[in-house]
């Protein structure tokens, strides 16, 4: 019975919205704006992909076309890795504008990932970027608040509520019905958007993983809209007048969307201070200095290595070793320095993760941040995805350097003077044997793991909001 009445109420709500010319106008605006945002997003993604592909091929060609040379020169020539954009990134730009797109990979040195869009932008960027995610997360809730603020408060003001209750309708039915009405109305925005997005997705060669992520993404947005609708209706039920309900909802929107994230960020930064680049480099360099200089085979630190190697091969000079000794030293050096760097880098990433967890935790008071984080994770535009690229690039860099060192150990004689020696050159075929860099995306399971706080927060909200429904009779007044 309750459900039947709830559905009738929901139908009335939808009909009431459909009648209003202004509401229809704003709906049209949202649909056009969302379509535009998706299209722009896809254009930008394609543009980036074209560039990244073009320059990756260029880098590969130039790598393969390199002439015969000493492998260590090749290690210094290095590689450039370009970040790919995840197929769903047209939906949510996330923090992609603020993270670098390419990194120069060379021996002995971990370079920063450079050329972020933010570094090339005027201050306009800081007003935000148009993406479907921004509109759905920020603007649609404001609109839903506008639609929903008087759903119950107005009836209260007009005395209709009393009448309804005498007809046997309960608070639970009323709240559920109104929420359902508002929520279903919001689907008139979400569903067309999702379909248009799906069409765009078809054009860029979708995979099962991408598609299931997209489905989940839309589901999470639906859940978000449900929470927003429920908040609007509950505030409306709790308020004496429609006006006070509207003020509360708008205040709520401002606080949650604009103020709280920025305050949480200040807190996160103070609780988990992150090192500056100069401080980070200094710490890493300090440790590396202690390890010695691997370019110098006579470095005291590597003396122990030298002695043990000579002992094992029973020779009295490194020149008599059956392999290239300088190469071995560099291999050892690369290993040590990479380990040191990776350890510090991991610590830095941990600090950033901790900072972000402060934000993630505020999702328990702010559903906006839950959807923001989940949406970025699903569309591959979050910190996790960026860090994943950075890690892959570093792994590739390490492999490149070590492969070149091994080639040197194996093929270069101990007697060559330096890298310019004719005998120190390797056949260019070797470069071709080294595989190209390929950026792989995170799988869906790692997203669940990274965003478990955000998912938990979303479910927490659903449960939380059902408490006032349960106790509506005691908490809400009819007049």
């Amino acid at each position, binding site marked *: 019975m309750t459900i039947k009445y709830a559905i009738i109420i929901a139908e009335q709500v939808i009909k009431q919205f459909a009648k209003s010319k202004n509401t229809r106008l704003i709906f049209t605006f949202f649909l056009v704006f969302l379509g535009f945002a998706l299209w722009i997003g896809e254009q930008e993604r394609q543009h980036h992909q074209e560039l990244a592909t073009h320059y990756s091929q260029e880098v590969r060609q*130039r790598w393969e076309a390199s002439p015969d040379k000493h492998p260590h*020169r090749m290690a210094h020539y*290095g590689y450039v890795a370009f970040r790919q954009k995840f197929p769903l990134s047209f939906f949510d730009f996330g923090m992609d504008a603020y993270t670098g797109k390419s990194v120069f990979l060379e021996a002995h040195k971990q370079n920063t990932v450079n050329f972020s869009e933010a570094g090339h932008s*005027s201050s306009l960027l800081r*007003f935000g970027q*148009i993406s479907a995610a921004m509109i759905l997360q920020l603007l649609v809730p404001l609109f839903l608040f506008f639609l929903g603020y008087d759903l119950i408060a107005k009836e209260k003001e007009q005395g209709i509520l009393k009448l309804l209750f005498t007809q046997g309708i309960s608070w639970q039915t009323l709240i559920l019905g109104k929420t359902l009405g508002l929520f279903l109305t919001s689907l008139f925005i979400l569903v067309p958007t999702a379909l248009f997005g799906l069409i765009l997705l078809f054009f860029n060669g979708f995979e099962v993983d991408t598609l299931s992520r997209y489905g989940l993404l839309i589901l999470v947005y639906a859940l978000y809209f449900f929470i927003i609708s429920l908040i609007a209706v509950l505030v409306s039920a709790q308020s004496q007048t429609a006006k006070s309900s509207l003020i509360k909802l708008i205040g709520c929107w401002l606080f949650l969307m604009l103020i709280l994230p920025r305050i949480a*960020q200040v807190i996160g930064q103070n609780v988990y201070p992150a090192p500056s680049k100069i401080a980070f480099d200094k710490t890493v360099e300090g440790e590396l200095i202690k390890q010695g200089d691997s370019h110098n085979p006579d470095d005291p630190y590597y003396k122990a290595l030298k002695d043990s190697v000579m002992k094992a091969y029973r020779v009295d000079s490194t020149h008599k070793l059956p392999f290239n000794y300088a190469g071995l030293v560099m291999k050892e050096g690369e290993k040590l320095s990479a380990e040191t760097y990776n350890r510090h880098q991991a610590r*830095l990433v941990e600090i950033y993760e901790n900072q972000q967890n402060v934000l993630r935790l505020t999702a328990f008071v702010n559903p906006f941040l839950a959807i923001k984080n989940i949406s970025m994770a699903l569309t591959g535009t979050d910190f996790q995805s960026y860090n994943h690229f950075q890690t892959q690039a570093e792994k590739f860099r390490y492999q490149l350097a070590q492969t070149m060192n091994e080639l040197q150990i194996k093929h270069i004689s101990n007697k060559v003077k*330096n890298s310019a020696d004719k005998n120190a050159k390797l056949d260019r075929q070797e470069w071709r044997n080294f595989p190209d860099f390929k950026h792989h995306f995170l799988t869906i399971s790692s997203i669940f793991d990274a965003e478990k706080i955000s998912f938990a927060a979303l479910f927490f909200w659903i449960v939380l909001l059902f408490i006032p429904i349960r106790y509506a009779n005691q908490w809400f007044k009819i007049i």
Partner: protein
Amino acid sequence: MNVTKLLFLNFIRAKGFVIALTVLGLAGLLSLYIGKTFIENHQKNIQKTAQTQQETIDRYVKFENKEMGLLLYYLKFGLVNEMPNLAGLSIGQRDINPSTMSVTIRNLEEQKYNTELHNPMYQLLGNLDFSFVLIYFFPLVIIAFCFNALSEEKESGIWKLLCSQTDKPFLVIVQKIIIRWVIVEILLVMLLFIAQIYLQIPFDFVWITFCLVAILYVLFWFALCTWIVSFQKNSNQNALLLLICWVLLTIVLPATANAFVTNTYPTQEAFETLIESRDGYHKKWDLPKEPTLQKFKAHYPQFADFQHPENKDFSWLWYYAMQQMGDDDAQNAVKQFKNKLAYREQLSKTIGYFLPTIHTQLVFNQLAQSDLANQLKFWEALEQFHEKKRLHFYPKIFSDAPVLQENWQQWKLTFFESQIPINWIGSILPILLITMAFLMWAMFQLRKIIVE
């Protein structure tokens, strides 16, 4: 006229208004604290860089003092993009682009674009600086103060009473709005005053322009509110219309403008620069030395007398000539890249002439030297700085001057201070004109009320 006093008391006694003003004031103070922290971090960073530079130079001079060429391979020299304290009020792009750069005299293009370490999530969310409080929060409070200035009187029935007592009832509305305007401006000026003392901002033309634009921005929102009010719609419609204006001006239109600017001037030259400078240098290792040296000497005729020693596989002259080629070969791409960025900045400014929110932010960032234009100037300064170091050290490297004869104590951090031309007309006129237009239109509408 006691009406003014009454209206004032009426306004002050309303609980909501006082709360709104308090919240706004507190947000303002918080933003000043955030700005102060930002400046202090910048100062700490400078100290750390200076200290590191000193230590690095000392260490390398002690251990690598046999060859000038090898020593200069390692040594880094820092250039600081000086940040005025005003940047604490308008952080702009300063949290994205590094304000100190340490470079070796090798290939600059491989070092120029290196970034600071940042948590990108925080950059995405943005800073709660003073400009944010002014551009986003002040308008909301202004809207809350004004949206029912007229409709409230009508809805409560006071309007009819008022009309019977005076032949110019709209003057009461104007007075009401003026009182609110004065109070908000007083709060703003108080915040600016505290900011000036707390952040030790020098009292100069830059600061006066900054304050004027802030005051005008507040006036603009009052003008917009008065304009909406003058259409005599009911309170709900006014609130909705004004909120839509706010969402359009602070979120939708700037974001659209940004998408437009980015798509009009895409910056693929960035990748081009990277690839060209990398190949420009590294390829030379496997090429005959003579052409590289020729090109180098064509660039620097003053070094034409230095020769690569015959039958030698390596010399520092050749090495730095190769490094130089990395920069020289990328010059075309670099020039195009910088032009693109300048176009982006210019187009943003032009759009700003029509949108006071964008205009205010851009003028603030320009005055605080935290905009893209400043970054471009800093890059240019870095290029010159780098070139100066090269010109100083190249002859010493090529002639293998003794390392220990150089006065290494002189290489402290260098500071770059950019001059900002204050463009009074460009800063103030656009927002002033828009404000006047709204005010005049509003007055015209309000005057009509008596005619009816």
